[in-house]
């Protein structure tokens, strides 16, 4: 059985550009994304999230997937089925 990544795993694959693209498509401000991400258990403060999106810093796979999930939850309201990719299927 494949070991699932733990909290220290470094995110591979999708990155900040994918999140920014999703925000643009959903017309979602950073603070709204942060609220959704925080409600899912995200640990970054809004300023840290801003820094990550501008290309500074790295995220664990789970923290990235929380961001992607926050966006996908918004897309679900519009009838779109999870268009933002996760770090793992």
């Amino acid at each position, binding site marked *: 059985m494949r070991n*699932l*990544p*733990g*909290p220290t795993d470094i995110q591979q694959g999708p990155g900040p550009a994918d999140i920014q693209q999703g925000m643009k498509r959903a017309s979602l401000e950073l*603070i709204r994304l942060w*609220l*959704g991400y*925080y*409600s*899912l*258990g995200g640990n970054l403060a809004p300023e840290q999230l801003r820094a990550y999106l501008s290309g500074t810093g790295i995220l*664990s*796979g*789970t923290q990235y*997937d*929380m961001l992607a*999930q926050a966006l*996908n*939850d918004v897309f*679900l309201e519009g009838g779109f*089925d*999870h268009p933002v990719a*996760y770090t*793992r299927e």
Partner: protein
Amino acid sequence: MSEHADRNLTRDRTAMEMQRATEVVRVPEEERLLVSLGHIGGALLSDTSVEVILRSVAEGTQTAVECADIVSVTISRGEGLYTPVATGEVARKLDSVQYESKEGPCLEALSTGAVVNAVLEAKKSHWPAFVGAALAEEIRSMLSMPLQAREQRIGALNIYSRDDRTISERDLCTATVLARQASVVLANALAFSRVAGMNDQLHEAIRTRDMIGQAKGILMERQGCDPDTAFDMLRRASQRENRKLRDVAADLVRSTQHRRPGR
């Protein structure tokens, strides 16, 4: 005292009396403005909604500006314009005509940032749809003042008048004072409303975070996994069922609570 000096004294007295009479006439207008500003300030200081504050601005303007027959406030939000308050249905109707036809003093004030003071009969060819509708309601002149917060135009204060003359300098000055007051009130109220809205959303986010934490705890106990794996399971279920993750988590928490003995 010579006859000449006597005549001068009489003339001076007459001038003084006329000045006093003018002052007597002017006091009520100044009082009306002060009362209006007082009401607006009172609304701002009390725990009232943006709509209540704007209503006090519209009613205050109708009281203080002599030519004002009906007053409305236009607010620009996103791509659209709307009228949150009006002192009469005619203003609401004529505001809508302007929004739909994309013409009229209110739209011009919003797009240029300048005060628009117009006798409508003379603007028939400029704003045909709006002027036609306004004249049908016996509105013959209109003053529209942009409401600005810093550099952003956030709305307009609209004064509709049945008078067929350009709105007087005095009324223009009074309306300017009120529009500036309204801009401050509106900018503060919108900022406050935004913060209050964010506060509500933050509380909701904290409640959801707690509930998702419970769902993860249930999965960790059942599956013997770590928190990240528990989140991943919820995330996969959300994707599989095409539902929001918080809804999946809420179902799990509810079903676990129902299964507990004695509950």
